[in-house]
C-alpha cells in the first residue's frame, strides 16, 4: 500500500476514514484560529488522500497528451488557510487541494489543449476566465474528478502566466490582497490594465490565426499584425512603469 494514503480504502476517499463534517470542522477551526499541530496532521492526512487521483491525472496528461505539467500534489497550508479566511467555502468544497499547471505559448495552443483535456477526461468542469477575468487573472482551469476527488489543471498562455506570476509576487511583496483586487490604487490599475492589454493581444492573435490562410484578407492580416506589435509595446511600457514604481509599494 502506498504510504501516502495508508488509511484510505482502495477506490475510496478520505471520507471513508474521516467524515465530510470532520473535514469541514477542521476547515472552520483553521479559519477561526489558524493552524495547530494536531490540525496540521489531520489536514495533511486529508491532503494526501488526493494522491491517487492526482497521480492518475498527471500520468494521463503525460502519456495521452504528451505534455509535462508541473504538479502540486498538495496545496500548501498557507494557501489553504488564506483561502478559508478569504472565502466562505467549506474545506471539503475546495477543488484545488491537488493540481497541476501547464504553460503553453499562446491562446491558439491553449484552445487546442483545453479541447484535448475535455476529450480525455470524462468528468470535468471548465472554468474559462479569459474574457471575464478574476481581478485581472486570466487562465483556463479544468477540474477533473477521479475517484470522486477533484484535481485542478491550470492551463495558461505565456502572457497569462507572466501576469499571474507578477500578481503573486506583488502580493508577496506588497500585501496579500493585491491578488484579489486590493492594495495601492496605482498597483491595482497596473494589474488590470496589463491584464486587459493581454486579453486584447490574445484576441488579435486568435483573429490572425483564423485568417492566416485567407488570401483575400491580406490587408486585415497586416492590420492585425500591427495591432499585435503595438499592444506588445504598450505592455512592455506598462511593465517598465511598474518596475519604476514598485519601490513605493513594497513592504520591504
Amino acid at each position, binding site marked *: 500500500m*502506498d*504510504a*501516502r494514503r495508508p488509511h484510505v480504502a482502495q477506490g475510496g476517499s478520505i471520507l471513508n476514514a474521516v467524515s465530510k463534517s470532520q473535514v469541514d470542522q477542521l476547515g472552520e477551526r483553521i479559519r477561526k484560529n489558524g*493552524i*495547530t*499541530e494536531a490540525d*496540521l*496532521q489531520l489536514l*495533511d492526512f486529508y491532503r*494526501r488522500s488526493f*494522491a491517487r487521483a492526482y497521480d492518475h491525472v*498527471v500520468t494521463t496528461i503525460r502519456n495521452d497528451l504528451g505534455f*509535462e505539467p*508541473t*504538479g*502540486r*500534489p*498538495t496545496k*500548501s*497550508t*498557507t*494557501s489553504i488557510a488564506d483561502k478559508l479566511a478569504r472565502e466562505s467555502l467549506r474545506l471539503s468544497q475546495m477543488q484545488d487541494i491537488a493540481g497541476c*499547471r501547464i*504553460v503553453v505559448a499562446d491562446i491558439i495552443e491553449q484552445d487546442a489543449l483545453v479541447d484535448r483535456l475535455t476529450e480525455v477526461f470524462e468528468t470535468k468542469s471548465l472554468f474559462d476566465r479569459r474574457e471575464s477575468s478574476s481581478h485581472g487573472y486570466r487562465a483556463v482551469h479544468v477540474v477533473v474528478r477521479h475517484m470522486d476527488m477533484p484535481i485542478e489543471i491550470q492551463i495558461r498562455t505565456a502572457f497569462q*502566466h*507572466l501576469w499571474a*506570476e*507578477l500578481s*503573486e*509576487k*506583488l502580493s*508577496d*511583496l506588497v500585501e*496579500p490582497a493585491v491578488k484579489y483586487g486590493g492594495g495601492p490604487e496605482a498597483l491595482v490599475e497596473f494589474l488590470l490594465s496589463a491584464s486587459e492589454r493581454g486579453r486584447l493581444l490574445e484576441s488579435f492573435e486568435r483573429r490572425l490565426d483564423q485568417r492566416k490562410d485567407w488570401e483575400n484578407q491580406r490587408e486585415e492580416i497586416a492590420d492585425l499584425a500591427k495591432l499585435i506589435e503595438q499592444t506588445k509595446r504598450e505592455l512592455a511600457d506598462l*511593465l*517598465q512603469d*511598474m*518596475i519604476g514604481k*514598485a519601490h513605493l509599494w513594497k*513592504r*520591504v
Partner: protein
Amino acid sequence: MLFLIQYDRGAGRIVKIQRFDDGQQDQADSVRLGLEMDLVRHRQKDEVVLLEAATEEALRKTHRRYFEDLTTLATG
C-alpha cells in the same frame, strides 16, 4: 523530480529548497510535514510547498515567483 520549497513571502525569496527523486514521494511528504510542524511550533508563516516537475528548469518556468525577483520577473 520533487522540490520542497520553503518560501518567505514577505521577503519574496526562497529560504530553503530540497530535491527528491521521483521515487522519494513518501520521504518528501514526511520532510514537508516535519518542516510545517516546526514552523507552526515557532509561529513562522513561511510558505511550504512540494512541487513535482520533470526538471528544475521546468519548475523555474512554471513557478517563477519563487525563484525570481520582481524586476527579473517583469523583464526576463
